[in-house]
């Protein structure tokens, strides 16, 4: 069995004259969390729907777990769990009944269904409200119920469309935690979002969508290097010495910038040890020295600034 669970080549979808998705390549591996990021209308949801076989691609191919979602949608849907944007449930039914219906549709045996519902609801910590009507659920609980459905279905791929939108910080934190647990069990997670900082913390790799194409792809750090400049970024807070001059003297440092609390430096290799040594030996007090993880927000803003004219 290959490691790639979703593979897209030249995938495109046209609505009339406009291209919602204009030829993208994707490779998503087993057990990774992959983020599709970009503004609304950039083609994230369309890509997801094509992978699920809910929308037919205009061109290109997509293969999910070795199946073609156009020709063999049932085989794909049997093994993929989907949490749509602003997911809806039957409000007049209990959580148990809702998940039971889904599992019946998925063709699961009756005896196994009940056991799995209880397990999955425990996993998302909704056991005590399992027999309450979903109409009484909060937004965060609904999203967790959606995850429970994916867990109960025993999906190998979880596709989550804007899972954190509209959630308060606590609910977001809990949801991200659940997504990490999915990953820990070897489920490949494909999620889309326009909330970058929340997604940054859990994604192994991200694809930055812009007008139907993937503008950038890779780990957050790789993107940072591509967009914000090559090299390693670090942040230094120190006092008692001319820090800026000392930093510039370290071999390999390319750039030093003062910011509100200290200095940001960019170097062509990891210079953390040298920086610490230089400052301490120079008689300075080193208060903080950290690798500056590039922020997706900054990458995103910079990228679209640079490409506004080109696009």
């Amino acid at each position: 069995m290959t490691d790639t669970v979703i593979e897209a080549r030249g995938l495109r979808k046209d609505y009339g004259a406009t291209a919602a998705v204009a030829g993208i390549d994707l490779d998503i591996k087993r057990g990774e969390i992959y983020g599709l990021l970009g503004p609304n209308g950039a083609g994230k949801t369309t890509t997801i729907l094509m992978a699920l076989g809910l929308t037919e691609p205009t061109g290109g191919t997509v293969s999910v777990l070795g199946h073609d979602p156009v020709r063999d949608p049932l085989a794909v849907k049997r093994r993929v769990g989907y949490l749509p944007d602003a997911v809806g449930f039957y409000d007049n039914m209990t959580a148990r009944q809702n998940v039971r219906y889904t599992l019946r549709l998925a063709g699961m045996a009756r005896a196994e269904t009940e056991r799995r519902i209880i397990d999955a609801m425990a996993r998302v910590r909704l056991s005590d409200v399992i027999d309450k009507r979903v109409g009484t659920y909060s937004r965060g609980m609904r999203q967790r119920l959606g995850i429970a459905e994916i867990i109960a279905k025993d999906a190998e791929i979880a596709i989550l469309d804007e899972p954190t939108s509209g959630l308060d910080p606590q609910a977001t934190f809990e949801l991200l935690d659940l997504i990490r647990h999915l990953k820990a069990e070897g489920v490949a997670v494909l999620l889309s979002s326009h909330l970058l900082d929340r997604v940054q913390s859990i994604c192994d790799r991200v694809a930055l969508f812009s007008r139907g194409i993937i503008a950038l792809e890779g780990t957050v750090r790789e993107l940072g290097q591509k967009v914000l400049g090559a090299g390693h970024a670090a942040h230094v807070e120190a006092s008692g010495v001319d820090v800026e001059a000392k930093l510039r003297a370290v071999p390999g440092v390319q750039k030093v910038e003062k910011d509100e609390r200290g200095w940001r430096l960019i170097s062509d290799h990891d210079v953390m040890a040298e920086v610490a040594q230089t400052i301490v030996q120079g008689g300075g007090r080193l208060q903080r020295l950290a690798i500056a993880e590039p922020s997706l927000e900054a990458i995103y803003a910079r990228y679209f600034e640079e490409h506004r004219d080109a696009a």
Partner: protein
Amino acid sequence: MRREGSPFTGVSAVFMKEYADHIGSARMRVLEWLVVLTGIGAVALSIRDFKGLVESDRFLFLKLFSYATESIPVSFLFFVSFLVPLMAIGLGFDAVNSEFNRRTMSRILAQPIYRDALLLGKFLAGLATLSTGLVALWLIVIGAGLFTMGVPPSGEEVARALAFLVATIAYAGVWLAVAILFSVIFRSAATSALCALGLWLFLTLIWPQLLVPMVVQLFVPPDPVAVQFGQPSAAQLEWAMGLSRLSPFTLFSEAATAVLQPSTFTLGVVFLSQLQGMLRGTALPLGQSLLIAWPQFTALIAAVIVLFAMTYVVFQRQEVRA
């Protein structure tokens, strides 16, 4: 390109869920009350008059279904032909668009079923719900008839009443299919309900009563001989009949009349000359009555199939995203 897997995967799951929804819904309460009141009303009305009937009638029991007096010219049959479309539209008008509005559609279609299964499951569940109500109604009428008249129905009467029941269910199916079609076309449940009701009004009242005579007057040349007697020509009658049969209401009324009134020997135009030598008041055997009603039966079922196919095509072309 051939798709893999059976289109019927999941039909039973959808059916069970929708049927349970219908049975527990407020609409079903309304349907139940209508059924009980209609049944009691029909029987009470007939019994009152039947008590005065001196002549013995072989098909007294069947008269329960189609009996109307001068004072209250609404027979049970007529009432059912109005009630059934309303109930069918009531059950079907939000079948598909409610899934979009509740945002459950994409979640359901992400399960391993085809869209056919969702439509078919919903249609069958609606039809089963209506059938449940209609069978109950049928049993109430028969039961109350037995109780009050004290005369058991003959085997043939039961068979004819059953044929009437089947025709009623087929008629309900037509309107359920119309309602589901509109529920796929229109995203708003209110629009869908209004359009279905509008079509029902058009096909039940406006088309057969108003438009068909007008169309015939305008386009079918009158026969000079017939005009002298102030009568429409045979061609005009034939056309009027044919056109009004585009309405399921006409089809159902004709089919029901043929099976409920054994003396109905034709549903078309007949000349006086053709009546010569016929024994008036005789009844056709059941098989012959069914033969007369057969085209109407098949037309109703064909209408269901055509409507369902249209629904499927429209649904298949829809984007899942709301």
